């Protein structure tokens, strides 16, 4: 292809990368060294913002909560998705119907899902407390979202549960495994769970990587669940990094502080990228 054409084809993507990625990156790095309320002139404050954020217990909490979200993605959400994919892969009666049902929550907005779970956890009107009373566990009823012990867990549960997309990505990979390979394993005497463990699981690695990437990226920018369900409370116990950045700008008008949070969010993203990239080594990506 002629050089001129190449430039033409690449121009829009490079333009977007520069305008919406590189310039904002420089911008947040720059503003993070200023005290700014969004209206008046910016005052340079050196590293004061960084020192303030690093000593802010709410920031540390937000960082910790984001990491807990990522852990929940890797240790609960993805394994559950894999388990369901492997079970459906056995072509259990009605597996196609199950696949449709499991995927259904994925076409519903997280705002609506979070809203729904807000009511499930409601102290008086909630489904959960009603269910607990029904089976005689009155002692366990709780005001789930306003109790600092349960609020974070409660906001993570719906995400951990709705594994439809994750499952379907695994299933697509499973369906590409050749019949010959399956037959060979069967002839070797592999049974149900042995097939899963020694044949299927090792072969879904690319799907696993896709899922880790999608879910980690989701958790990094996770905002909707805590924002709708708790607004980050009680006493910031459910605040994530994205919500911290949002609150510092929108509620506190501390743009400089907010940008420090952004810088850390970007750094965390880069760290996770390196980890995923290392795990992925040996894959087909260049």
């Amino acid at each position, binding site marked *: 292809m002629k050089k001129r054409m190449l430039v033409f084809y690449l121009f829009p993507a490079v333009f977007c990368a520069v305008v919406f990625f590189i310039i904002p990156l420089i911008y947040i790095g720059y503003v993070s060294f200023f005290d700014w309320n969004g209206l008046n002139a910016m005052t340079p404050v050196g590293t004061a913002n960084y020192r303030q954020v690093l000593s802010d217990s709410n920031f540390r909490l937000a960082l910790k909560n984001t990491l807990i979200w990522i852990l929940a993605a890797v240790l609960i959400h993805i394994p559950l998705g894999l388990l369901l994919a492997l079970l459906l892969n056995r072509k259990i009666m009605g597996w196609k119907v199950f696949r449709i049902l499991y995927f259904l929550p994925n076409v519903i907005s997280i705002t609506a899902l979070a809203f729904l779970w807000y009511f499930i956890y409601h102290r008086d009107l909630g489904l959960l407390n*009603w269910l607990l009373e029904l089976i005689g566990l009155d002692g366990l009823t709780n005001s789930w979202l306003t109790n600092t012990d349960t609020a974070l867990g409660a906001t993570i549960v719906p995400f951990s549960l709705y594994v439809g997309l994750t499952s379907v990505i695994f299933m697509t990979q499973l369906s590409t495994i050749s019949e010959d390979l399956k037959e060979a394993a069967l002839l070797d005497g592999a049974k149900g769970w042995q097939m899963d463990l020694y044949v299927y699981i090792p072969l879904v690695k690319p799907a696993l990587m896709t899922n880790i990437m999608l879910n980690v990226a989701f958790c990094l920018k996770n905002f909707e669940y805590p924002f709708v369900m708790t607004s980050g409370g009680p006493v910031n116990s459910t605040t994530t990094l*994205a919500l911290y950045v949002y609150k510092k700008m929108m509620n506190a008008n501390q743009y400089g502080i907010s940008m420090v949070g952004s810088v850390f969010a970007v750094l965390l993203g880069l760290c996770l990228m390196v980890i995923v990239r290392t795990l992925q080594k040996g894959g087909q990506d260049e």
Partner: protein
Amino acid sequence: MKRVKLSRILIFAFLVLIACIMLVPFVWLVIASLRPNMELLSNPFGIPETLNLNNYFEVWRRQPMLRYLLNTFLAALIAVVIDVVISVMTGYAMLHRFRMRGKLSTMFYVGLFIPANAFMVPYYVMITKIGLYNTIWGVGLIYGVMNLPFSIMIIRGFMETLPMQIIESGKIDGATANQILIRLVLPMTKPGIVTVCIFIVINCWNELFFANLLTLSESSRTITVAIQSYLTSFEANYGFAFAAMIISILPTLIVYIFLTNKIIGGMTAGAVKG
């Protein structure tokens, strides 16, 4: 008759249980949305005495729901157009060898991991400066930008699986680069494009962060922002809030019901390549 193994029955029961945990809340939501508020508050789990569509009529009358739905649809459409055009052009260029290819490739990959939320202030300033604050164009533009790295990954990955002979044969026939793209590559990339479109539409329908940040008035508000504000404004009337939620869910749900296999298949056509 074939004997069904016990293990299969247990698995079936487990699958049913998971489906129930996932979906029973929705059933409850639908029923609750059909009940008057008073009844809902006094007896939330009893057998409903009255079931009607009054909540829906009231919400539709009091709030510009159609407007919100249209706004959301428009934002998604703008994002889809931006992303598909740019990704197809980029993917096609990346099929060729050139000097900066590796560096560009890395940059797109990094983009996947940078949470767009981190850019809230620069995007806010930018959108305000170019006069798109509080317009659906501003929201759509940012949605396009947010979904671009993923969109490029899928479409590029898809194009790379196409046989290279097609491009070669095009060249031999004397076709220009544009002709090869439009007549040969583009038709074969359709499944990848469908995947991207579905992903983007669902993401846009979900998005709350930038929709909240970049809009102010009803005229540009998306459905997620509207729903989120009901949590406070409809505090006293859960019946209305539930009905509003169902209205927000319906469009994607209807599309899903009619296009189930296309969506489940399409969502993953490009995603497994990773």
